[in-house]
């Protein structure tokens, strides 16, 4: 019995600690949501008057709708490009055994193991030196440098579980290279590709340090929020932050269900 008691105690402690950390992780998110529901111009807790006024104002704001549009275009472009680049990158990473593979694997990881603000600043200097005007287009490139490697890894994990012998079998049965890709490789890798797209979209949507330095006069949601945090608080800051968080949660749940369905189908 002693043994079981000890195991139970460990189990309980681990749960308590984990739940406590989860609580801390979500506490500020919750605080933002609270601050968005106050009627007054300044946040005072406990809230005297609750209202959705700032939600309405944020929804109606033309400035905010421009921001959201820019953020969506940015995240959309990054998703498409990063998924394509990452898909092929993942094949090179985990599927083919080519001469430079081991080196390639390390090179791909370098941008992930690099502080993003420094990467953003280096790109700022680079774009300036080239004379490129900064806009959300340049931010797409900046996001890709970081996100495409991440997506490569996400898809590579799926590719590791894929037995290349089935490609050989299809090839042997008379399929062309293109047909092998379309009929065998792609369908088997769909779950990984879906997760990759989901990650790409969400990471781009929530990215702050790269957008901050590389999008020039165009502002994304995180970047705009930052400027307002530093100077000029309005309850629209927690409101838009909360909206952005809820949007990401919605995309994650829809995407998560899609990934689970894709996985079920491919099994």
């Amino acid at each position: 019995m002693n043994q079981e008691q000890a195991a139970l105690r460990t189990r309980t402690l681990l749960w308590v600690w984990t739940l406590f950390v989860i609580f801390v992780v979500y506490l500020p998110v919750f605080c933002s949501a609270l601050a968005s529901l106050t009627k007054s111009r300044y946040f005072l807790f406990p809230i005297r008057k609750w209202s959705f006024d700032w939600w309405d104002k944020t929804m109606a704001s033309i400035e905010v709708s421009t921001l959201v549009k820019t953020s969506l275009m940015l995240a959309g472009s990054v998703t498409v490009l990063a998924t394509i680049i990452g898909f092929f990158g993942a094949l090179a990473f985990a599927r083919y055994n080519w001469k430079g593979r081991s080196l390639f694997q390390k090179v791909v990881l370098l941008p992930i193991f690099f502080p993003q603000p420094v990467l953003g600043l280096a790109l700022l200097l680079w774009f300036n030196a080239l004379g490129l005007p900064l806009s959300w287009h340049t931010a797409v490139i900046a996001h890709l440098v970081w996100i495409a490697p991440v997506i490569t890894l996400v898809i590579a994990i799926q590719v590791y579980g894929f037995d290349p012998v089935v490609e050989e079998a299809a090839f042997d049965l008379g399929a062309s290279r293109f047909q092998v890709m379309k009929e065998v490789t792609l369908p088997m890798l769909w779950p990984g590709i879906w997760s990759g797209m989901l990650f790409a979209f969400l990471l781009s949507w929530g990215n702050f340090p790269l957008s901050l330095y590389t999008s020039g006069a165009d502002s994304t949601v995180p970047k705009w929020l930052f400027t307002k945090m530093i100077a000029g608080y309005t309850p629209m800051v927690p409101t838009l932050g909360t909206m952005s968080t809820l949007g990401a949660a919605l995309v994650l749940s829809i995407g998560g269900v899609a990934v689970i369905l894709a996985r079920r189908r491919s099994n």
Partner: protein
Amino acid sequence: MESHALQIQDSAISGAVKKSRGPLLTPGARCALPVIVLLLLGFAAPLTAVIAYSFAEPHSFNVFSSFSFANYAEIFNTENTVWMSFLWSLSLAAVTVLMLSVIAYPIAYGMVYVFGRWSGLVSTLFVFPLFISENVRLYGWVLFFIKNGVFDGTLNLLGGADAPEVLYSPGIILFGMIYTYLPYMLFPLVLGLSLLPRDVVDAAKDLGASRYQVWREIELPLAMPGFMIGLLLTFVLAVGAIAESKVLGGQSVIVLTHDIEVSFTYAQNWPLGSALAVLITLITGGLTLFMLFKLDLDRVLGRK
């Protein structure tokens, strides 16, 4: 070992391709091409430019036409404050990494061994914050700790005491960094621990190892690849952190990245900023390369 079989079947397919299209790159190299081009233009080139500027004359744009170590000298000149940001960034990062390993290890252990079917949900809960930009999450803490904020307000409600002033101090910056980089420590640890076969732990216990001995002799050494990745990732990201000091710290501490930003923007001293960026790159890149060449990525990521 396994790679031989792959290689054979690879060359079979590439051989067939070669017949029809003549000698191109191997399929692997062709697939790697988009990533390589992207990283050449978006990663290697900017870093090269930064290196080039770091040797230009201070406050000039004379890249390649002048060569000087003046920028580096300026960083380590004790009359300036730049070296202090350097020290702050490095020490904040080191403490962050230490604290995170203590905080994340039990959670990772639970996710691998204890939580069972709940560990999927737990990991989703820890992944999700990665999709909320760090400034939004950090700003939530401002609303929590600020005067008349959630913490202060709750204390006032309960007993009338005022909450201590914690915002705009080095301590809160550290807290913010620990908070932001938790997932980057947690998931590599989970990866590392899940590489550890359950039987091996059972065998060690069976042979008489106590719980602590199992941890020291078996768990830790075998989970080391994941642990190393976590340490490295959090350290590297924390060295370059800036949002924490801007949002929570009220610039009570000037971090390294902040100095780079100032040189690249208001001060228009590209060479100085570049020299700083080069130093950061040397530290993070050196550590990363050292680690990557010690790790067998195929084993860590899934081929085993």
